[in-house]
Each structure stands twice: as structure tokens, then as C-alpha cells.
């Protein structure tokens, strides 16, 4: 009986991955098609090999950047949901991406005279990731500990924090010189169409390291989903794990936000759809499933936008779908 059930579960996982994994190269192909042949067909122009490779030189970093950001968002969202014992919270919902924008603004504002420092996207990233790390360690550690994983409290905190940070950033931006203002805009107004491609080559090794570290701990996450106290009594040093996860989340969210801007609902969507179709509590398949689904959603969405000639940005579509899905989750589970 037990063996049969175990087998059935594995069959489900294999079937799901057999469907979604091949979809990934297909989505990449569709994206390249949408930027090359679809465009040339529409305009009635032949595409020369030189033009093709020039488009590819922009499309490939774009694909890499989107995949890296989407995968990072999915991984840190799932780890965040496990440590907060919630299926609805994601790091962006409690203000991690507003924190990134505020950090960028404050950095430019405070160091406007030494502007050259921030011309390099790498130095900029490392400084802002460092600041974010420090802020999130102090704030979220305090908040997570004092709230006792009270989701309502965390959501309220996130709402207020996002509001304060966004308006604070806007206020500082008003005080800035024009040059500084444009510098902030260049760093924070990134979208999928206007990606910070210079960061892609930093993103890939970072993605690799973060995903290896997170996936390596998948068994610990399984136990942590029993809750702080119970997992501590099963030998998980919870305070250490919490800090480690806050580091992953700060690094991952700052990188993803620096690459493609704020995408509030992608993590929620990817993680919950992965739970829904994989029907498992085990984190290894969940992490991989959520990462693949997240990348698929972003790349397929972006391809659709290209094919429809950019009528609406993909972030709007994802946020719309994700937001409706969140309503559905709240109504179905009848709790937050």
C-alpha cells in the first residue's frame, strides 16, 4: 500500500516535469522567434544573418536575465513561505523590492558628488545588496521574531514599510539634481523590455551559488515547514537558518529587482502553481518546479507581448494574473 502510494506520487512528479521541462526551451525558442521572424514577417522584410545575430546579441542576454530573475524570485519566495509558514506571503509583498529602490535612491542622494562610483553596475549592485542585507537582517529578524509568524502583522508591516519607502524615495528624488534623478531612474526603472543587461553576467554566477545553497538544504526546509519550535526540537538550529534565509532573500531579491524591476506577484504565482500541480510537501521538486514555472511565465508572457506588438507590458499581465490568484487563494483557504 505504502509503496504503491509512494510510486503514484513519484509518477505524478515525473509526469509534471516531463511536461514543464521541455516547455522551457520551447518558450525560449518562441521568444527568439517573436523578436526575429515574427517581426520580419509582420514588416514584410527579409532578415539578414547579420541582423539576426545582432538581434540575438540582445535577445540572449535578455533571456538569461529573465530566467535568472524569475528563478531567483521563485526560490526565495518558496524559502520565505516556508520560514513564515504561509502560502500567501512573498518577499516582495513585505517590502523587499521597495527596500531595493529606496537603497538605490539613498545611495545616489548621499553620494551624488562621487557619482562615478555608481557608474559601474557591479559596484552599485554590491553596495546596494550589502545595504539591503544589513537592513533586512535587522528589520526582518526583529519583525519575524516578535511577530511569531503572525501573517497579518507581517502583511501590515510590509504595507506600511512599502508605503514609507516608496514615498520617502519619491521625496528624495524630488530634492535631487536632474542628473542624480536620471541616475536613480536608470537604476530603478528597469523592466523586462529595458533590462539592466550589464548585470546579467553577475547574475548567472550568483544564481548558481544561491540555487545550489538553497537546493542543498531542501531536507532542512522540509522539516522547517513543521514550524519554528517543532523543527528546532528536531535538531534544526532555527535562528541560524532564519539568518541564512534572510541573506538568500536579500541577495536574491536585490539581484532580481536590479535586473527586471519589481514583479510583486510572480513568486506567489509560481510557488503556488507548483504546489498545486506537484501536490507534494517536499522542497526539492517544489523548488525546481517553482523555478521552471516562474521562468516559463515570464518568458512566455514576454513572447506574447512581443507577438502582440507590446500592447501591454508583461509585468502588468503577471501582476494581474498573480493578484487574481491571490484573491482566489485567500477566498479558498478562508484565511491568510
Amino acid at each position, binding site marked *: 500500500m505504502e509503496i504503491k502510494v509512494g510510486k503514484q506520487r513519484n509518477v505524478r512528479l515525473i509526469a509534471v516535469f516531463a511536461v514543464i521541462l521541455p516547455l522551457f526551451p520551447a518558450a525560449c525558442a518562441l521568444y527568439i522567434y517573436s523578436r526575429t521572424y515574427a517581426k520580419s514577417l509582420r514588416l514584410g522584410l527579409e532578415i539578414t544573418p547579420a541582423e539576426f545575430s545582432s538581434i540575438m546579441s540582445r535577445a540572449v542576454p535578455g533571456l538569461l536575465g529573465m530566467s535568472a530573475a524569475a528563478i531567483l524570485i521563485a526560490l526565495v519566495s518558496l524559502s520565505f513561505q516556508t520560514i513564515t*509558514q504561509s502560502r500567501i506571503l512573498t518577499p516582495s509583498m513585505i517590502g523587499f523590492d521597495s527596500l531595493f529602490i529606496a537603497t538605490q535612491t539613498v545611495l545616489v542622494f548621499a553620494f551624488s558628488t562621487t557619482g562615478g562610483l555608481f557608474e559601474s553596475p557591479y559596484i552599485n549592485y554590491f553596495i546596494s545588496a550589502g545595504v539591503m542585507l544589513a537592513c533586512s537582517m535587522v528589520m526582518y529578524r526583529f519583525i519575524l521574531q516578535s511577530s511569531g509568524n503572525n501573517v497579518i502583522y507581517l502583511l501590515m508591516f510590509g504595507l506600511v514599510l512599502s508605503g514609507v519607502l516608496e514615498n520617502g524615495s519619491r521625496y528624495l528624488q524630488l530634492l535631487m539634481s536632474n542628473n542624480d534623478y536620471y541616475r536613480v531612474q536608470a537604476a530603478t526603472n528597469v523592466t523586462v523590455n529595458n533590462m539592466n543587461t550589464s548585470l546579467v553576467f553577475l547574475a548567472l554566477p550568483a544564481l548558481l551559488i544561491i540555487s545550489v545553497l538553497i537546493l542543498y538544504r531542501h531536507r532542512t526546509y522540509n522539516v522547517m515547514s513543521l514550524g519554528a519550535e517543532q523543527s528546532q*526540537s528536531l535538531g534544526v538550529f532555527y535562528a541560524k537558518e532564519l539568518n541564512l534565509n534572510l541573506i538568500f532573500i536579500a541577495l536574491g531579491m536585490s539581484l532580481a529587482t536590479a535586473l527586471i524591476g519589481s514583479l510583486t506577484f510572480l513568486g506567489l504565482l509560481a510557488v503556488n502553481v507548483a504546489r498545486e500541480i506537484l501536490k507534494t510537501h517536499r522542497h526539492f521538486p517544489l523548488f525546481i518546479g517553482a523555478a521552471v514555472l516562474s521562468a516559463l511565465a515570464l518568458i512566455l508572457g514576454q513572447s506574447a507581448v512581443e507577438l502582440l506588438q507590446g500592447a501591454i507590458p508583461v509585468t502588468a499581465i503577471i501582476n494581474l494574473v498573480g493578484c487574481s490568484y491571490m484573491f482566489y487563494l485567500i477566498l479558498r483557504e478562508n484565511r491568510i
Partner: protein
Amino acid sequence: MIEIKNVSQSYGRKEAKKTLSDINLTIRENKITALVGANGAGKSTLLGVLSNITPILSGTVTLGGRDVRKIKTQDVAKKIAFLKQSQQMSIRITVGDLVEFGRFPHCRGRLGQEDKRKVDESLEYMNLPDLRSRYLDELSGGQRQRAFIAMILAQDTPYIFLDEPLNNLDIKYSVEMMKIIQNLVTERNKTIVLVLHDINFAAAYANHIVAMKNGQIVREGCVKDVIKKEVLNTVFDHDFHIAECGGKNVCLYFDQVQN
């Protein structure tokens, strides 16, 4: 051996909010120790401190003569198993999966032959093999509690600490649970500490009772020493009537019963 010395703990940094103040306690080996007291007396906090889950403000908790804070969490988990009060789960898992979690301190989630054998044995002991592939949310309260005890058993620790194990159980299941706990002491040589809300369950099944009030131990001793009118009246701020029934003390606390 678990011993705590001069332990204080408080929520918030204020002295006034002390949940435990200056507690000294030695856990009796191979016995059932019941922590009793009114709401907010500090029973659950004390249990959390004993299990190395709640950090302490001052004092020491020693496990086998060593300060618990200096022992790795994983190694503490091989000695002490703790079951929290309400098992509200954010995930949907089967009984088998849950019991396998009990092996985590030993194998970090990679189950070997020995671990699988312990899991099977614990399920067997708690009479759960048929329910192994059932999801926890499909079970009755009593079955679910048995599944959690099976997890604790799979953890294979000499010490088992239970925070209100009878919570949400009806009378039949409560008695069944207390019998299981008694068997764990006699058959498996476990040392058990549990928080009990119902003083009569403590009187009937515990070997040693620790009565707490306002974060302090008011009285500890064997059942006859603690289940006394004058002790309980102070501990619970209530008028008790102690009756004897079959050689055991039974507490009556209804105002209709006159002394």
C-alpha cells in the same frame, strides 16, 4: 540528566514581565513529571526552556552535566524530543512522512535502513500502520495525536516533553494517550515531562508533580504531597475539595461541592 538552575525568562526586557523567575528543577529519570498551574503560570515556558527551544535570560540548563547552549542543536535533538501544543500544519503530509521527520536529528533527512526500521517500529507501536499513507487532515484528533507521538518515538530520545498532549482530545482518547505515555515509561524507559491542564489527569497518572504559579515553582513532589487542599488552593487561587477514590486523590473544584 536534565537539571535547571536559577533560570529566569521574560517576554520583553522588563523585569515585571518575568514568565519564569529563579527556577531550580531536576527532572526525575524514568518518571512522568506533570507541570500544573493556572494559565500564564509559566508551564509551557518552562517546558520550552527544558527542551532548549525557548532561550533563557539567566541561569543554566544542563543536559548530562553539560550546558545545553554549548551542545549542538542536532545533538540535543537526539536526547530530547518536544511536541508543541497545537499541531496546526501549514502543509499537507501523510502519517508516514510525519513519522519520518522524527529521524531528522539522526540522518538529516536521508533515511537509511536503520531509520526506516525505527519508523516502521514506531508506527507499529502506536498502532498506525494502516493509516501510514493517510493525510493528517483526514484523521481524528486522537489518531493525529498518536501520529505525532509516533514521530517523537522515531526520534528515539530518552527524554520526551509534551506540551498539553490532551488538548482537543475527548475523554476516551485522553485516557488512551495517558496510558500510552505510562507505557513509554515502563516499557521503553523514557523520561517524560508534560504540561497538563486537567489536575485530575496529573493526579491519576503522574509520578511527580510540579505546581507553578506566577513563574515560580510553588511546590513539587509526589502526588500525595501536591494534591492537597492547601497546596492547590494557593496554586490555582480557588477552593478545592479533595476526595479519595480507589486509593487515589481526586480534585473537585465545583462550587456546588461543599467541604
